[in-house]
Every structure is written in C-alpha cells, then in structure tokens.
C-alpha cells in the first residue's frame, strides 16, 4: 500500500494531455479512478501492463505510462492472456469499452471469466459505440436511440454482472463514474483479487449517447447515475426494481487461478513425473 501523495504524473504520458476524449467524457473519470487504485496499491509502473482494444475507451492505454498495448477491436483479453501467461509477474489490467468487451469481444470475455486468469477487466460502459459515431451496443438497451437505431434499439441489453457471473467470473462488481471514489476502491479490490475480475463502470458519452438520447450534458448524465443506481440489495429496489445495483457481486477467492492452475496441474505435475 502506498502512503505517498497521489501524483498523476507518475502514471501518465503527459505529452498526450490534454487527452483526446470529448469534454465530459466519462472515460477520463475511469482513468483517474484506475490510477488512484494503482497508486493505493503501491504498484510500480514497470510491474503493470495495460491492454486495451479499440474504441474511445481503449485509447486509455496510450495515455498511461505502463507496458501498454492498444490491440485490435475486441482482442484485448486474449492478448492480455498471452502477456499474463507468458509473464505471470505482471499485473495485467484491461480497460475497454462496452462494445469492445461485450460485442466483438464477448467470446473472449466469457472465456476469460471461465479460465479465471488473473487479469482485471474494467468495462468502461457508456452504452454506445462512441468512437465510430454512436451506433448501439449490446449494452444500449431497448428503446435507446443510436445512429443505427433511428427508431430505437429493438434488442435487449446484457446485464454484464449476470453475464460475468454466468460465465464463472470470480470477482464481479459494478459502479459508476458518479461514484468515483467507490470506483477507485472497487478497482483496487479487483486488482488485488487473485483471479479474473470484472468491474463494470457506468461511464458516459455526452457526444454520442447524450445528444441522441436527450440525456443532457455530462453533469446531467452523471446525475442520472446518482439517481438511478443503488448499492447492492438496497431497500429502494423493492419500490423501483429498475434501479441499477452497484457493489461487489462476486468475490470468490477459492477458485483456482489459471496461471497457478497451469503451473500446478500441468508444469509441476509433469516435472515431478519426469
């Protein structure tokens, strides 16, 4: 644990600041929470690898002074899996968009959950494809307006927490950019967790989602998360079941982590045999 003062400059590539995200883009808040969590954990820059896909969110890897890879759309997790398995000493963190993680990358997401490889996935969920101009994502939800859903999205969204649970993730949490401190602490716990951890952070895209859905400017969109989320199991849910729950839904330390499993069940086993 770090007891020094948090200095953002330790963690960023300052030459790229101000970053390219739009004014009020929630992704920046997530980045702040991530850096503070890393600071809280006292991790060295060299020991961290940040791997992202493609999307506004995924630009994050370029801004951070770690071992960083900006991969292909949807392929952050398998690339991160290669990095982690090749060098289990690295703390591997994968911050990526809702599209990157649940649309094109959905398969890698569920398999990373299943394998329980020690990677922290941070889904920067703005419920839209920000980068490509506001097409709907699997997280948009029915009725949302998007550039490919001028009459409203006809399909249901995933509940990412349920999906991760169903796929077997051993740490699953949800928070929002409004709850920035909570986000920081949740990410911290997730990184500490030995196994695959998923943190969904409800983020916002004022430019694409906000405008098309008359959701207001960034502060109003942040307000919405304040008003429409409650801590896990809150009593308010009884009255209003549409409220979104925040919290740590799964935190299971019993499940064998993949790199450990490979070491113990394969390498050690064959070495002992041999």
């Amino acid at each position: 644990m770090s007891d020094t003062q948090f200095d953002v400059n330790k963690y960023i590539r300052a030459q790229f600041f101000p970053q390219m995200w739009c004014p009020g883009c929630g992704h920046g808040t997530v980045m702040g929470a991530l850096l503070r969590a890393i600071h809280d954990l006292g991790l060295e820059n060299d020991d961290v690898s940040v791997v992202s896909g493609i999307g506004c969110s995924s630009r994050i890897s370029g801004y951070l002074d770690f071992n960083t890879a900006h991969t292909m759309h949807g392929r952050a997790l398998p690339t991160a899996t290669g990095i982690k398995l090749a060098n289990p000493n690295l703390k591997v963190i994968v911050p990526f968009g809702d599209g990157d993680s649940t649309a094109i990358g959905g398969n890698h997401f569920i398999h990373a959950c299943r394998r329980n490889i020690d990677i922290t996935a941070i889904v920067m969920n703005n419920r839209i494809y920000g980068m490509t101009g506001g097409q709907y994502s699997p997280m948009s939800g029915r009725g949302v307006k998007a550039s490919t859903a001028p009459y409203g999205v006809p399909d249901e969204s995933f509940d990412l927490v349920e999906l991760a649970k169903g796929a077997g993730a051993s740490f699953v949490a949800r928070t929002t950019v409004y709850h920035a401190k909570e986000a920081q602490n949740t990410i911290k716990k997730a990184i500490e967790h030995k196994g695959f951890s998923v943190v969904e952070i409800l983020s916002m895209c004022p430019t694409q989602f906000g405008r098309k859905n008359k959701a207001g400017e960034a502060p109003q969109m942040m307000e919405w998360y304040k008003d429409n989320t409650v801590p896990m199991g809150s009593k308010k849910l009884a009255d209003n079941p549409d409220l979104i729950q925040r919290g740590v839904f799964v935190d299971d330390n019993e499940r064998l982590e993949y790199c450990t499993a490979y070491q113990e069940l394969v390498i050690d086993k064959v070495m002992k045999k041999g």
Partner: protein
Amino acid sequence: MAKGKSVTHVINRDWCKGCGICVHFCPKQVLELDSDEKAVAARPEDCIGCKLCELRCPDLAIQILIEEGE
C-alpha cells in the same frame, strides 16, 4: 474552509475542457467556469477539501492540495 486546513486548488487550464462536472457537483459551489470555459475556484474559502471535484474530473485537471495547520 475546514478548520486548521489550507486548501489549494491546482487547476490545469491546459487540460480542463470545461465540461462543468466539477462545478456541478461541488457540494459548496466553490467552482465556476470562467469566460474561457475553464474551471476556476471562485470561492476557495468555502472549500471543504472533499476532493470530489478531483476524483470526478475526467481530464485529471484538478488537484486539491490540503495542508494541515497554518
């Protein structure tokens, strides 16, 4: 201002994009956007050092420095 503390608002004007998040959510209305659409601490004396502005700023543009005592 919180007793016995001095709070400095370090706002990086090059990085601030004027989104207004810090302004909107400051519990003490300390912050404002100026005519360049940059955040400024208009009423620094009201600041309680809660750092909510710093935590939420998407552009890492605010830092709240708190010095104990005087």
